[in-house]
């Protein structure tokens, strides 16, 4: 346990130390000393910005991410299980996927206005793809013997979906959901670059445009910490959802761990 914690913090500590010392005497305007960034961090984020910027951003992220999960898994199941449908929609999806968010946002704005809905849609539009793609691939790769088992025992419809398709694809779906998490944070920022007056991303961009570089860096730091925090929460959920899988696969890791 102690070893695990030590392992988990060792590299970050080394990196932070390296950053600290490398930047200590920095006079470069765009690379301020870490000390300075940490100084401005609390005053920047722990004041009213917590409620005005951080929380609304997180709420939008949560809604957008949840919507992406539902849509990605749902569509992925459909597309993955149906060859014809897959052939029809795949090029279209690839087309849409390649549209960069900065040019997608104006289009979304036409449909959804400039409020929270638009931002949620932007987050959704980015998080969707890794989940969708991974779900499709996961569904395609369902073990044939299991499929046959379901067919011959007449396990169909909802039961088949829940107990075969979703579960069997879940390692891959989780991999996609993990990808989507950090993409969601990134899109949270991008969505707030357009048509915003609050939010973490908005604030970071404001700092950048206002040449308040240490504050901007503190925002980048915040986003990174947010990523770590969410990834950690994600792992807790993963451990529940994929308990069987991690147990089954532990064979390899387990041996080394016990040594």
């Amino acid at each position: 346990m102690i070893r695990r914690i030590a392992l988990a913090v060792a590299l970050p500590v080394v990196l932070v130390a390296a950053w600290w010392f490398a930047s200590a005497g920095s006079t470069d305007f765009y690379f301020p000393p870490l000390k300075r960034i940490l100084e401005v961090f609390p005053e920047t984020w722990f004041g009213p910005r917590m409620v005005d910027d951080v929380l609304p951003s997180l709420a939008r992220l949560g809604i957008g991410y949840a919507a992406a999960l539902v849509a990605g898994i749902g569509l992925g199941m459909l597309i993955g299980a149906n060859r014809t449908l897959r052939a029809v929609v795949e090029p279209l999806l690839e087309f849409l996927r390649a549209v960069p968010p900065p040019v997608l946002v104006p289009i979304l704005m036409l449909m959804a206005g400039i409020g929270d809905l638009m931002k949620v849609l932007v987050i959704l539009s980015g998080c969707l793809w890794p989940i969708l793609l991974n779900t499709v691939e996961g569904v395609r790769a369902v073990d044939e013997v299991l499929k046959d088992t379901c067919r011959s025992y007449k396990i169909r419809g909802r039961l088949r979906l829940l107990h075969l398709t979703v579960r069997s694809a879940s390692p891959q779906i989780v991999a996609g959901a993990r990808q989507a998490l950090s993409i969601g944070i990134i899109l949270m920022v991008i969505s707030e670059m357009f048509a915003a007056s609050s939010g973490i991303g908005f604030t970071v961009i404001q700092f950048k445009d206002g040449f308040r570089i240490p504050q901007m860096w503190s925002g980048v730091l915040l986003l990174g910490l947010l990523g770590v925090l969410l990834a950690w929460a994600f792992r807790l959920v993963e451990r529940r959802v994929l308990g069987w899988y991690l147990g089954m696969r532990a064979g390899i890791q387990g041996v080394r761990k016990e040594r």
Partner: protein
Amino acid sequence: MLTVNGLSKTYDAKGRHVEAIGDVSFSVADGEFVCVVGPSGCGKTTLLRCIAGLLPPTSGEIVVEGKVVDGPPDGLAVVFQEYGRSLFPWLRVRDNVDLPLRAAGTGKAKRRELVTGALDAVGLSDAHAAYPWQLSGGMQQRVAIARAIAYQPRVLLMDEPFAAVDAQTRADLEDLLRSVWQRLGVTLLFVTHDIDESVYLGQRVVMLSSSPTTVAEDLAIDLPAERDQLGTRADPRFTELRGQVYAQIQKAKQERT
């Protein structure tokens, strides 16, 4: 009634063209217990998968309970040779057995009874909360058998279902299977590579040639309906039949080589 009519099956994957089943016809009466034996790779699994409606035949047809098979027929259960892969790794043992019953809409109390009963019968009552991958090979195979039994099918196809269990357990399972068969009146098609087992278990033994497979011999087993491991196997008629099956297989083999 289960009829296999002029069945042939050719696998035609890139780089591998295999005529697995040449021309096979036979039929199984309702409630009959038929064993199928044949050399490794002769197409027994392929045959079973065709009957189960999981694999379309290249030609010929299969009729189960009056309907031409073009998908898994109702009331049919399969115990797959790849027992390990046929269990859901994310479901505990009891849920694996339970799932087909849920799909069939069986009531909760009834389901619990059937699941517990089946797991008891195969000697796994204390492993019901384990995941399949926490079990030994033989235990996994017994879970697959329990699932088929709990399902109470009208037609049961079993593909080398006792391959991974020890002699003693195997004997117990053989007797279990015969009693289930007698109790439920299920039509049973049982693939095995154990000649003694085929003679001990069934009312008929269908022997297949090696591929492209045909029916080499269809032998009626005229042993009394009441069988027991020691008595029946000591019966001279058993030894005789056993010898016949063995000789037939040897013959089929010699014709090939």
